[in-house]
């Protein structure tokens, strides 16, 4: 009896190891609390959503640094390339492209573009090849980001040096457009 019980516990522990690995590897695909799900609950695809900086506004996703304001936009490269632009200039902006699971695929900042203006296109390698053949005039000044993903999230963060900058940064982030190019 004792031997059978010990055997059962041993099998149980091996099973626990398998379950541990299975849960761990499946969690990113099945999580309902990930960044994508939270954004999907509050905004449509291609809608520019403010990631609440601090107290007051309800926060979709925390932007932890108190000196930063940020916006997010969900896109689907299966429907076409994503084109993001903003008007004006700010002391510092940076952008990150995330895949469906919230993993950071590519990031860059305002030093990437020639004059610091925000104008970039996210495309898959295939769309990029197609576009290079015949570059539309509207993308002449754009920075191209190649991302081999389908659905994704793009986040733009901007530095707010002090309270007097808040209206400028808010206006800048409000001017961001995110659309199918």
């Amino acid at each position, binding site marked *: *009896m004792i031997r*059978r*019980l010990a055997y*059962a*516990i041993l*099998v*149980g*522990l*091996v*099973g*626990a*190891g*398998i*379950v*541990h690995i*299975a*849960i*761990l*590897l499946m*969690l*990113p695909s099945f*999580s309902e*609390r*990930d*960044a994508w*799900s*939270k954004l999907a609950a509050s905004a449509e695809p291609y809608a520019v959503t403010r*990631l609440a900086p*601090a107290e007051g506004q309800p926060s979709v*996703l*925390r932007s*932890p*640094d*108190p*000196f*930063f304001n940020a916006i*997010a936009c969900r896109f689907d490269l299966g429907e076409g390339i994503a084109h993001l632009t903003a008007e004006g200039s700010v002391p*510092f902006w*940076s*952008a*990150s492209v*995330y*895949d469906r*699971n*919230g*993993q*950071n*695929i*590519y*990031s*860059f*900042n305002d*030093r*990437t573009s020639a004059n610091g203006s925000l104008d970039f296109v996210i495309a898959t390698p295939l769309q990029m090849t197609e576009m290079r053949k015949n570059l539309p005039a509207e993308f002449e000044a754009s920075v191209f980001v190649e991302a081999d993903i389908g659905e994704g*999230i793009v*986040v733009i*963060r901007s*530095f707010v*040096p*002090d309270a007097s900058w808040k209206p400028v940064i808010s206006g800048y982030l409000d001017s961001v457009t995110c659309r199918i190019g």
Partner: protein
Amino acid sequence: MLKTVFLSLLVLAIAIGGGAASVWYALQAREGIGAVAVGPWTTFPDLGTPQADPYSKARIAREGVLSLGLTEGLTFIAQKDSDGGVLRRDCNYTIDGTFPPARFWTLYAAEPSRAVIQGGHLRPPALHSSEVLRRADNAVSIAVGRDPTQGNWLPVAGAGPMSFVLTLYDSPAASSSGIADVALPRIAKAACND
């Protein structure tokens, strides 16, 4: 017959219960694989990238974090002072030394949940590099505590553990291979209010 049913149920209970509990425990733990420590400061350069370990990936998915990319900034977190004592919100600390090259850096005190600690004053609960006072050798000394002090002051309030979060934005330290070689300031405990 009943014995076989009981043993099968035991196997299933240990496998499913133990497996789920161990994942939950592993994801609650803060320190993880892939950490780079510089004195009391630690950073996770791979956090939130496809190169991260499965535990970080699961944690990212579960907490809904959109982590900062390496070209955006590099975040260091200190939970202990340079002598190894846990950082407490009711103590005074001095953060002193030179900061690595970066466009700018920001520093704030955070709760264990990573929420910013509000100092209870009108001042913003954080500091950034272009507003701090520097000594002649470019070093910065920041007093952290409840009561206002001259020079650089980071207000904190309350009780319990806290951590310091230092983010270097657009820093060459992030792109070079030697993150462990950067010099970060010391954290010294000054006094505690009891």
